[in-house]
């Protein structure tokens, strides 16, 4: 009989909390947007599905063995934990949880061993997260694959467009200020690390955002990743009004000169140039930009096509599956359903807007000082969101002048924006770690 009782006791319905119901619905909305509205489906399908899995009551798929034990709170286990943490067993579960959060790595290992002895296991998604994201490897491998898919030709044909990619990164730092401001005025409780991780949403680059969040604000990673990918998908809605508001019809009609042909050799040497500059001036950006340049070199050098093919296909696909499910594990109700999430979503869209605006303004500024005119519409592509933002520039350009194809010209700032946000990520990581240690 008690088995039936047991089954019911651990059936989902009995354990289901309202938050979990909400998050399962959120997961379904993400799946709907990905499948029906084609919102970055390669990421949002795994993230949405992982989010549902993470909120299955009783399955604890997103919990470590220790979390599961703390959640079950069996007296014997709690006593053993308290003893290992050196606190009074009578202090209660809340105290034990807090002590665990501030405990040393050695104590974490001890509790993990104890949890194992008591028969608790890590959840599937927790393991995926540890291997794929906590280790930092998945975002880097995806960045390598993106590098192997990136053509720097347009950028090399017109290096000035790097300035557009730089300007658009202002969205990142303005958002950092916004988050800090929300904290300053007591509206939300964001640390400087949280603020930096939120700001990177403005980089409009998924792997970079996940990489930074995993280092600076793991508990916000779910919201940050969802915001980053959702807004990337919304670029065609977010950018045009801003672009039109900031440009005259005349400016939008500017026809840009045909690009020069870029030689194979330049394309091969470019990633090495970037790497050398990173080595000389920005070591903290070495992991991201290093892997990005490595992927691009494999693509361009032409002698390791089989590695480049794998980096662009099997490897990036495998990594994407586990990265997405791992991000989903951060959509567990207790973490995700927090006012902070709303703040993150609000700040994220502001970041996209400001980045777009600054890119356009920078283009207009450059036209002031240069004879060779730039169509300011390609400035907005500086936020990256490859290749969506470049397509938007092209589309708006065609509206103004049906003969004016800006796509190739917009690819320059577009990939420049990827480099720009990786640089911003590097400097923020090193500065924040210096501030908080």
């Amino acid at each position, binding site marked *: 009989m008690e088995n039936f009782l047991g089954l019911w006791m651990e059936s989902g319905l009995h354990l289901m909390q309202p938050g979990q119901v909400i998050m399962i619905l959120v997961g379904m909305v993400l799946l709907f947007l990905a499948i029906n509205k084609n919102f970055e489906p390669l990421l949002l399908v795994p993230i949405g599905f992982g989010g549902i899995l993470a909120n299955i009551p009783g399955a604890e798929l997103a919990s470590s063995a220790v979390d599961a034990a703390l959640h079950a709170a069996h007296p014997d286990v709690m006593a053993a934990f308290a003893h290992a943490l050196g606190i009074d067993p009578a202090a209660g579960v809340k105290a034990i949880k807090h002590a665990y959060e501030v405990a040393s790595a050695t104590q974490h290992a001890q509790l993990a061993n104890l949890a194992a002895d008591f028969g608790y296991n890590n959840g599937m998604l927790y393991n995926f997260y540890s291997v794929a994201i906590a280790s930092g490897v998945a975002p880097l491998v995806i960045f390598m694959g993106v590098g192997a898919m990136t053509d720097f030709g347009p*950028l*090399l044909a017109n*290096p*000035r467009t*790097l*300035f557009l*990619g*730089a300007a658009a*990164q*202002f969205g*990142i*730092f*303005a958002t*950092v*200020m916004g*988050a*800090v*401001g929300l*904290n*300053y005025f007591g509206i939300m409780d964001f*640390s*400087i690390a949280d*603020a*930096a991780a939120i700001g990177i949403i403005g980089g409009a680059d998924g792997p970079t955002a996940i990489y930074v969040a995993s280092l600076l604000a793991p508990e916000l990673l779910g919201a940050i990743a969802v915001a980053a990918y959702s807004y990337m998908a919304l670029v065609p809605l977010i950018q045009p009004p801003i672009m039109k508001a900031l440009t005259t019809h005349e400016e939008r009609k500017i026809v840009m000169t045909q690009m020069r*042909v*870029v*030689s*194979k*050799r*330049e394309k091969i*040497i*470019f990633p090495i*140039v*970037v790497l*050398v*500059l990173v080595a000389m*001036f*920005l070591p903290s950006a070495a992991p991201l930009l290093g892997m990005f340049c490595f992927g691009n070199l494999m693509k361009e050098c*032409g002698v*390791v*096509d*089989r*590695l*480049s*093919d794998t980096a662009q296909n099997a490897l990036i696909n495998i990594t994407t599956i586990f990265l997405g499910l791992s991000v989903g594990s951060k959509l567990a109700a207790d973490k995700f359903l927090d006012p902070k999430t709303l703040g993150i979503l609000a700040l994220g869209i502001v970041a996209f807007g400001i980045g777009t605006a600054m890119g356009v303004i920078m283009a207009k500024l450059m036209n002031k000082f240069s004879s060779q005119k730039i169509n300011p519409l390609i400035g907005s592509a500086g936020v990256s969101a490859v290749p969506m933002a470049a397509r938007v520039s092209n589309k708006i350009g065609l509206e103004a002048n049906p003969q004016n194809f800006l796509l190739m010209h917009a690819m320059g700032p577009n990939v*420049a924006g990827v*480099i*720009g946000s990786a*640089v*911003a990520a590097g*400097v*923020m990581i090193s*500065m*924040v770690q*210096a*501030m908080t240690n």
Partner: protein
Amino acid sequence: MQQGIMQQGVDLMLYGMGTVFVFLTLLVIATAIMSSLVQRFLPEAPPVIPAPRPAAAPAGVTDPKLIAVIKAAVDQHRAKNK
């Protein structure tokens, strides 16, 4: 070096945005130099877009799958044209 979070935010913005601009400016310069050097000293026939060949395997084996596909494709076509 704990300071007020506001101050920290301002620092992040100033030094962060500064670094981005400095770094990308250096990159513009380096790229321009690199390109001019390459064009002067390593000129190259305008690159014919190479029909991407299936990457060669280390031990010189060629991917049997691809061959199979090619064969299948041609066979099926011939069949169709009978």
